[in-house]
Structure formats: C-alpha cells, structure tokens
C-alpha cells in the first residue's frame, strides 16, 4: 500500500497554500467592494435619470370638456459644438431630413444646425488675431494641414475702432470644412479624428511660439478651447414641434448614426392649448419676469386656477414628475446601449373644473355677435349664472374696439333701471313701501318734492309709453317708472340706502381673480336729496361692472343672500375630488322681500317692459318644444334698463375709438392722454346703455337661471333694454336650459341612444406601463 504524499507540487505546505489563496480571494473581494462603494475609486456612475416636467393642471368646463391643457411637443435639441466634432453635417442633414419625411429640407436643416452661422459662415469672434498669428494660420491653411489647401476656412482683416492697425478674424464654413469630401482629401475617415486634427492645427498656429503639448489632458483642453471658439453655441433647439409620426424614425436614425444624447436628442416639451379656441377669459401661459425659466400662468382663469391650487391644495395634491432611470452602457465593442432600469410615471394631472358650460359660452358669444351686428353698440356683454349658487355658466363680451381688458370685469357702465330692483328691495325691506301702495307718477314728468314740501328744481322724465296717474308700487317696477321709483327710493334714508348698496358690493372691486378689474363708482355720502339720492333710485350716478351687478341682482333673485359669483367648482386628481366651497352668503334682504320683488319681475315679463324678451323666449320654446308647451312653467321674470348718458359722461364709442387710435399710432396710454379724453365731444343724442336681466326656472329640474345682457350705446333703430338686449337674453336663456342647442332644436334629446362623447377620456392601453400592478 503506497503512502499518499502530503507535499504540494509548489513545495508549499497545505496551510500556506490556503493562506495564499485566501489572501488573493480577500484582496479581490476588498477591491470589488472598494470599486462598488467608494466614489473616489473613479468608476463611472452609469445610472442616469431623465426627470420630466412636473404635471401642471388642466381646466375643464362643468361637463368635463377641456378648456385648457398641455399637449406634448417633440423638439430636437442639440449641442452644435459637441455634435459637429463627431459627425458630418451634410450627411446628418440628409439622414434627418429623410427620417422626417421631407418635413424640412437638408439645406434648411443645415442652416438651423449652425445657429452661430450667418449665411453658412461663422466668424470666430473669440480671437482678434495679430498679423503674426494670421500669417501662421494662413500658412497652416495653405500647406500645413495636408496635401491640398483647406477649403472652407479663411482669414479676413478688420479695422480697429480707434483707427489703429487692423486685426484679423478667422472665418469658416462648417458645411464645407467638415464635409466628407474635404475630410477625405486630407486622408481622414473619422469625423472625430478630423476635427481633432483641425483643432490641433489651429491651436498650434494661434498659440505659437508656445510649443505643442504632449500631455493628453492639456491637448484635449486646447482642442476644447478651439472648438469653443469655432462653435460658441453649446445648446440649441433647431426644430420644435416635430411631426409626431416621424419621431420614431428619427430616433432610429440618430441611433444608427451613433449620435449620443448630449450631442443631439429628441426632447419632450409641451404646449398649452385651448381646444375650443383661445379666449380673453381663459388667460394664457407665458413669462411675466426675466427670472422665470419656465412659462407660468398669467391672467384670466389660468391665473385663478393656479392661485387656487397653490393656496388651498398644495399639500394635498400629489405632483411628481415622470422619472425614467437607465444605465448608460458601453459594451466591449464600443457601441452605446441604454439599459432600462425603471420608469415612474408622472402623477395624475389635476383638473380644475369650472362652472362654465363651454357650449353655452360659445353660443353666448354668437348671440352677442348677432346683437353687435344688428344694433352696432360699442360693446356687448353677457353673464349667465345659476341663481342659487351664483355659479357662472357663461360670461363673454364682444367689442367693436378690441383694446380693453376683459370687459365683464373691467368695463364700467351706468346701471340704469336694472338698479331699480335694488331700490325696491331696500324700500320693501325697510317697510317703507308695500307692493300694492298707490303712487302718483304724474304725467310723464315728475318734479321732485323735498321732505318739507318744497318743490325742487329737478324734473324726472319718463320713457315713451310710460303709465301715468296713480299706479301700484309693483307696477312702478314692472313698467320701470322713474317717478315711482324716485318717490319710493327717496323714502329710504340716504345712509340706509348707502349701506345696502355697499353691502351688495357696489363701489368695490369684486376680486374675481380673472385679471384687471375696476370698482365702479358709488357716490360717497352725503348725497344731495334731489340729485344723487334721487338719481340712485333709478340707477343713475352709480356705475358698475357686469360682474358686480349680476352678483348684486342675484342677491334679490336668490332670496336675499349676497354671494359673489363663482367660476371654479372643484379640483380633481384621479379618483380624488375637492369641492371649491361656495362663498359664504351674507343676508341682505329677507326671503319675503325678495319674493315680492320677484313677483314684480314676473309682472314685468308678463305686461311690463320685459314683455318683448318674454315673447322672444316663448317663440323659441314653441319652435323647439311645440306650440302646445306651457311656457308659464319657465316662471320668467325681467327687469330692463335703458340709461341715457348724462352731459358729463364720455361716449363709449368716442372713448374707445380714441384709445384705439392711440394704439394704432403706437402712443402710450398715459395719464395725460386719459385726461385729454374729457375734452372730446360728447354727442349724447343717441348714447344709451341698454340692458336686461332675464330670470327663468328650468321646469325639468327646478334650477333657476339668470341672464344679464348689456349693450353700450347701440347705434341701430332701437335703444330700449328689451328691444336691444332682450332677444339675445331670451336666446341665451333657452340655450342654457337646453331648449336649444346652438340655437336649434336640441337633437340629443330627440334621438335616443346618442349623447356627446367625453373627449378627455383616456385609453389605458396607450399607457401599458400604468397597467403594471
């Protein structure tokens, strides 16, 4: 039996061998750990993250139809300096043009790829070359760079500003110098090697007598320096809004040409769009100051939504950008490859839901345009609101002179007779009049009598066909009799009257948040009895914006609670929803007072000044729902207003046309120019503000709606509120109640089984990554 030898082949004892092996293994493990965990080990950090933009918000109407949202945009971003050190411009231009299906020609692309060039030539402004440097460079261009002189690069002299000896500038044509032809003439196949050789040559000529550096890092630094001078622009966006159908093809082209993302890439940008068209009410996104790097909401609904989100829900909303993580890989063969690691989709886009009805908004505009065409006022405005909540369903204006901010919150007008609702409600509330009290309104002219019985010097006149003699207070309002309302209003002590009017928001900016707005004018106390106090009773000497006036009139129609108008109703994000609380109501009038005023408005619609509007509405109802339909179900109420401009007022036509003239002439709207408006002529013979408030109840759901239309200075045959604005108000109310759609019979109610699509619907199959559990 032979004995097994325990000696090793190397002569080491077994234990020693184990120690050696153990040491080697431990050393490898330590080195691996060092490389893995220690940043200073110099290992490249290969994990990359593309972080997209934070999701902003969308705006939708009450039915979920999109008012404003972002849509993606594809841009081509590049670093010209980095790109053209490694790629051939003409070749890339041809390839990219082909990938884009000829959307841009190669010539156009070349022009865009060199933003530093002017007519294809770049002047190197970094160096003001001396004669000696210029000579060396010229020699290098002629002989030093290869067998033939270099094409596409030359020197030109430039005179000194102080008249001294001229200096020289290097100029070059990248399309020629970096072309495959010139490169091959000089024996280079690789664009990168060619550009490095060019940089070395230029650097040596410019830096002489400094010797060429043998140090690799220093050489690279000098090459970078030269290319920074040759192509100053390190970033540009040559193409915006690439056609979406060619983006994948372009990606493939860039990949096949070995273009690194830092050289050129398809970037994801976004555009704010308004599917139903841009509108002054919506506002816009843009830059408001120089420090901004990204556009932000400005003015209109955009600004209001932004404030709402920031102020109330910033901590509750989830707002995370999309993050794509990938490993930047370079295999042994040198090919670039990105390895997918993870993708975290962006959080759901918050949607701010407005109270607007987009279809109604559109129809309102059309109705106003028709009013403009027929009656030719300086401007026409309309607001449609839900009586109970004060939610605005539509608000718009059409102007003959498009020069002012959004008119319903900015344009101030004299309220006229629609203000009589306030006068009557206040007197009823204070117990100073009852609906059936008889009032002697005279015979078309009423002289104001002081409380002590003395006659004043002021006589109040009536419109045509006004009732005469003794009539009830209710008839005074229904027939809009100035003398009646003056007598009723003068019974209210001025400080009491003022307090009511002030609490209704007159004379104060409503802070709608929609942009530039004005406060209107509420004459401060004390009022002269026969002047301001008397004028206030029938809506003169008080001016307001449509926004304020509708909120105040809504108080009476609603039942006495003052509530500012509301235009935003909720915020939604995915499954979550936050309601925008209704503004707290402030009790101004009792329900009984408002019921009595509402009865008078019914009388106004039935046989008063608003009967034109009622008949127009009934005509629409009969045309749409049949002659037999009982129109009394709509419970209409009206109050019209026709205010003639007083001598001191400026005509809106005159003012706006003058301001438009400034704009056309490029003149700034200075305080002096505004003062000069007062000296303009005031041809007041035909200057009226014609308005109407039309209220109705939808019999299907009991919802009450109010429509307020005002036309400033109509120049047609008509001037009275109902005749000018009544038709538009009736058509808008019918549309708001769904009796018509776009002014025609609402087809969706006629054809069973069809309804509007909800365009914001999102198909999950297009976002497969979101389906992963």
């Amino acid at each position, binding site marked *: 039996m032979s004995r097994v030898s325990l000696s090793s082949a190397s002569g080491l004892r077994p234990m020693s061998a184990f120690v050696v092996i153990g040491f080697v293994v431990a050393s490898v493990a330590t080195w691996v750990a060092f490389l893995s965990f220690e940043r200073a080990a110099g290992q490249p950090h290969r994990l990359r993250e593309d972080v997209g933009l934070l999701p902003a918000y969308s705006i939708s109407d009450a039915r979920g139809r999109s008012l404003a949202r972002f849509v993606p945009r594809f841009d081509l971003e590049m670093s010209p300096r980095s790109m053209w050190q490694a790629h051939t411009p003409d070749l890339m231009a041809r390839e990219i043009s082909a990938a884009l299906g000829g959307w841009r020609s190669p010539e156009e692309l070349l022009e865009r790829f060199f933003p530093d060039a002017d007519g294809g030539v770049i002047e190197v402004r970094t160096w003001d070359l001396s004669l000696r440097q210029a000579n060396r460079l010229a020699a290098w261009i002629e002989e030093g760079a290869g067998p033939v002189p270099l094409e596409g690069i030359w020197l030109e002299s430039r005179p000194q500003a102080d008249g001294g000896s001229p200096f020289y500038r290097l100029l070059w044509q990248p399309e020629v110098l970096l072309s495959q032809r010139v490169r091959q003439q000089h024996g280079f196949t690789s664009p990168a090697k060619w550009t490095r050789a060019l940089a070395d040559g230029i650097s040596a000529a410019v830096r002489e007598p400094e010797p060429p550096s043998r140090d690799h890092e220093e050489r690279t630094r000098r090459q970078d320096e030269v290319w920074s001078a040759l192509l100053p622009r390190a970033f540009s966006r040559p193409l915006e809004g690439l056609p*979406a159908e060619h*983006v994948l093809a372009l990606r493939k082209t860039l990949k096949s040409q070995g273009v690194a993302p830092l050289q050129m890439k398809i970037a994801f940008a976004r555009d704010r769009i308004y*599917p139903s068209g841009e509108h002054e009410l919506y506002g816009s996104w843009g830059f408001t100051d120089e420090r901004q790097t990204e556009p932000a909401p400005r003015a209109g609904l955009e600004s209001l939504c932004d404030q709402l989100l920031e102020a109330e829900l910033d901590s509750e909303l989830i707002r995370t950008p999309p993050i794509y993580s990938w490993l930047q*890989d370079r295999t042994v063969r040198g090919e670039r490859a*990105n*390895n997918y690691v993870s993708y975290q989709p962006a959080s759901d886009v918050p949607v701010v839901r407005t109270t607007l009805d987009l279809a109604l908004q559109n129809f309102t505009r059309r109705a106003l345009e028709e009013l403009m065409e027929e009656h030719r006022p300086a401007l026409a405005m309309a607001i449609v609101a839900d009586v109970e909540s004060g939610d605005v369903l539509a608000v718009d204006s059409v102007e003959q002179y498009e020069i002012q901010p959004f008119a319903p919150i900015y344009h101030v007008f004299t309220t006229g007779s629609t203000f009589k609702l306030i006068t009557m409600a206040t007197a009823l509330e204070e117990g100073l009049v009852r609906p059936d009290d008889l009032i002697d309104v005279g015979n078309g002219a009423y002289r104001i009598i002081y409380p002590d019985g003395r006659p004043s010097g002021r006589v109040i006149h009536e419109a045509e066909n006004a009732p005469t003699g003794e009539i009830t207070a209710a008839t005074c309002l229904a027939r809009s009799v100035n003398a009646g309302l003056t007598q009723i209003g003068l019974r209210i002590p001025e400080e009491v009257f003022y307090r009511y009017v002030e609490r209704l928001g007159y004379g104060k900016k409503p802070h709608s948040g929609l942009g530039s707005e004005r406060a209107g004018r509420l004459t401060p106390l004390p009022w002269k009895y026969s002047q301001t106090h008397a004028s206030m009773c029938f809506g003169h000497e008080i001016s307001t914006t449509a926004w304020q006036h509708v909120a105040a009139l809504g108080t009476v129609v609603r039942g006495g609670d003052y509530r500012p108008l509301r235009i935003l109703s909720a915020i939604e994000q995915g499954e979550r929803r936050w309601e925008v609380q209704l503004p707290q109501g402030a009790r101004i009038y009792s329900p009984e007072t408002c019921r009595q005023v509402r009865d008078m408005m019914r009388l106004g619609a039935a046989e008063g000044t608003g009967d034109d509007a009622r008949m127009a509405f009934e005509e629409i109802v009969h045309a749409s729902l049949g002659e037999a339909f009982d129109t009394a179900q709509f419970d209409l109420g009206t109050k019209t207003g026709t205010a003639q401009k007083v001598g001191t007022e400026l005509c809106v036509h005159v003012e706006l046309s003058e301001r438009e003239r400034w704009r056309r002439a490029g003149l700034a709207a200075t305080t002096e120019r505004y003062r000069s408006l007062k000296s303009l002529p005031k041809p007041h013979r035909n200057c009226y503000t014609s308005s109407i408030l039309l209220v109705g109840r939808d019999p299907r759901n009991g919802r009450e709606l109010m429509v307020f239309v005002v036309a400033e200075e109509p120049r047609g045959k008509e001037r009275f509120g109902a005749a000018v604005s009544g038709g538009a108000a009736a058509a808008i109310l019918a549309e708001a109640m769904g009796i018509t759609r776009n002014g025609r019979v609402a087809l969706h109610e006629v054809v069973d089984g069809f309804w509007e699509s909800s365009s914001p619907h999102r198909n999950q199959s297009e976002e497969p990554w979101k389906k992963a559990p």
Partner: protein
Amino acid sequence: MNMRGLLGVLFAAGSLVVGAITACLTAVNRARGAQLDERQHTCETNWRRNELLREGNAVAEWRLLCQEEELGEEPQVVPVVRIEH
C-alpha cells in the same frame, strides 16, 4: 489523479462554467435592457403622439359641435401605432 487534484480540476471547471453563464446572462440582460429601453421610448413616443391626436380630435369635435365646419370624408383619427411584443 488523487482526490485533491480532482477537486481542484472540478473547482476550476466549475468556476469557468459559472463565469461563462454569468457572461451569457449579462449579455442577455444587456440585450433585454436595451430592448426595454427601446420599448420605453417607443411607448412614450406613442403615448405623446396619441395625446396630440386626441387633442386634434377634441378640436375637430368641438368645431363640429359648433357647426363651424362640415364633417369631411377623411377620418379624423389617425390609427395608433401598436407595439408588437
């Protein structure tokens, strides 16, 4: 060959096999990673493209609702590029 020698050879062979498998797995993983990266970009591009098309449809729908234009014969919706897996 004694037992220790055999173990040594087996260990060496095992190491080679593990190394080879690891290299293969790495290569497959890399290829898969690159493929996933490609698909990610394709998906995202298509998603953005579809968003644009959807918006185009919303605008067209709106115009039709408002009677601003008549419905054309050409379809408003461009077919979506489907990804084959």
